[in-house]
């Protein structure tokens, strides 16, 4: 094995297939698929898996799509097969509520990502405090981190820490960051936060940087990395878990996961679930290049087809207008405005 400077470091990997992967599946994962996946994660020694609608608690909507089942049905399918693996949920204030977090706890969730846009941490104090009161492992999750500066992000992270967050994430929702960016952001957080506060990194592979970025994060002091088996997630997917574990293994970073079991899962369980091959194609590459929220991908593809506008043009326009996560309604609005402009120019 390689004698790496990171040998002996411990990293907690957190799988996103049953949450971020819901985006890639247009929220259509069955409870049977969820249970089989969760069982395999337990067997492979993965410490945490996230299970909710792609947009988290309260996500079922016309804006974000209606899942096949309620979050409660998904949790009830998954929780009984987990013993060592912890089930987590996503909560975005403004969409999900504290009452929904309490319900999630009642159905077995023991960890939560409380997510805000990278500049809006102060919409989360009640929700972070609620997670802590419930006794949940509580993370602050600063989305679209590239739209804030490293020092600005550290200020927001410090706020989340003050609300009670035990971990704060640098969340590269657009898959826009390069390894040197990740180093700067994570270093800024590491310098600002208490030693006891963990730092997480959540990447998207839109520029093919998922693993390199995650390793850069670990090197700069992150101890939690979000991944998904076979990269099942929004855009070109998350950092592929099986590959990340393999790289960690080579570098002597300890994840505690069974690499061969994860490879088999990717091949035999997750890949066959995909409706489209989650990969770097021209649309998902555009997300990473233009810094656009990864979840916009499938919406832009569908609306591009409906209105006869190349999805890439819509995505670039959304990036120019600085639309952020949760503004999926603005994709159709933008397409309609582009159509009007085109017609008036003709």
């Amino acid at each position, binding site marked *: 094995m390689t004698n790496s400077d990171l040998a002996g470091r411990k990293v907690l990997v957190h799988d996103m297939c049953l949450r971020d992967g819901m985006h890639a599946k247009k929220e259509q994962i069955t409870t049977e698929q969820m249970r089989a996946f969760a069982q395999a994660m337990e067997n492979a020694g993965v410490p945490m898996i996230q299970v909710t609608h792609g947009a988290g608690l309260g996500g079922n*909507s016309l804006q974000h799509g209606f899942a096949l089942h309620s979050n409660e049905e998904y949790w009830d399918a998954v929780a009984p097969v987990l013993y060592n693996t912890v089930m987590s949920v996503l909560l975005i204030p403004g*969409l999900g509520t504290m009452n929904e977090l309490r319900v999630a706890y009642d159905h077995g969730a023991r960890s939560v990502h409380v997510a805000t846009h990278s500049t809006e941490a102060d919409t989360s104090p*009640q929700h972070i405090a609620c997670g802590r009161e419930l006794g949940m492992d509580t993370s602050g999750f600063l989305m679209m981190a590239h739209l804030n500066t490293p020092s600005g992000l550290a200020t927001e992270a410090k706020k989340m820490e003050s609300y009670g967050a035990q971990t704060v994430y640098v969340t590269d929702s657009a898959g826009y960051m390069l390894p040197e960016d990740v180093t700067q952001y994570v270093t800024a957080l590491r310098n600002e936060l208490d030693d006891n506060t963990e730092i997480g990194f959540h990447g998207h592979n839109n520029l093919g940087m998922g693993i390199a970025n995650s390793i850069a994060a670990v090197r700069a002091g992150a101890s939690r990395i979000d991944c998904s088996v076979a990269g099942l997630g929004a855009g070109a997917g998350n950092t592929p878990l099986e590959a990340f574990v393999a790289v960690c293994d080579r570098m002597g970073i300890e994840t505690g996961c069974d690499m061969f079991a994860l490879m088999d899962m990717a091949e035999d369980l997750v890949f066959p679930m995909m409706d489209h091959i989650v990969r770097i194609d021209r649309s998902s590459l555009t997300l990473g290049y233009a810094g656009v929220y990864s979840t916009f991908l499938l919406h832009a593809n569908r609306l591009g087809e409906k209105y006869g506008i190349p999805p890439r043009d819509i995505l670039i326009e959304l990036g120019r207008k600085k639309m*952020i996560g*949760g503004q999926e*309604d603005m994709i159709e609005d933008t397409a309609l405005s582009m159509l009007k402009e085109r017609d008036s120019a003709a």
Partner: protein
Amino acid sequence: MNKIKCALIGSGNIGTDLLYKVLRSDVLEPVWMVGIDADSEGLARARDLGVKTTHEGVDGVLPHLAADGVQIAFDATSAYVHKENSDKMNALGVFMVDLTPAAIGPLCVPPVNLDSLAETMNVNMISCAGQATIPIVYGVSRVQGVDYAEIIASLASKSIGAGTRANLDEFTYTTSNAVCQIGGAKKGKALCIINPAEPAMIMRNTIYCMTEHEPDQEKITESLMDMIEKVQRYVPGYRLVNGPVFEGNKVAVFMEVAGLGDYLPTYAGNLDIMTAAACRTAEMYAEKILRGEMQLVAEAS
């Protein structure tokens, strides 16, 4: 013409914008502005405009209400403290217009139900998103049944003060409830996004309605245009950007609200639609009081 004297509680973004609206009213006169921070910009502006101020909260104004003849109060603080504020005001016979999502009184969206509001000592203005979207939901539901309505409000980060940020759950519940109760949808859902883009983005609202049966496109479009025109009478920057888009039973309407720029610049239409609606509602009650049709009675809390 006589004016009804008013106290404004809360000197943040909403309270300060409201001050300018009330100053322009023919039937309302702001005489007190209440804050909790001596250095508040809103209080300084109020003083410059000749309005008395206190930074000692509601208790700082209570001893002066009778002497100054205050009959209407506006609360632009937080859902968490509204009930206490309202009880104190009502106990002295002061009518309360609630701009927090506390919603302890009847809900009001002026172009939909101002004329049919019950006798009450507390009326609630729901939320900025409620004021911007419920006229549209009602515009569809008065034509045909709406099984489900969903509204998404995108707000400029700079326009969202501490009170709103601490009340996002209440915002969600109160607005969803009002989408049904006043908008006429069987089920409702409200989502809120805060966007920090520079230059600041104008408030946007998207309204989705799922009709029970195939939508009557012509009638719905006509009804929506009528509702938009009614809102424009008190918020001129209320504008249809795209739609209505009909897709199966789904009706999608994409709105924008530009403000008058009284306090924050015009992007903060969320302030205007709330404060203009609150002002319009207070004026209706003020006119009743002036005509002797409504007696304000001190209520024991």
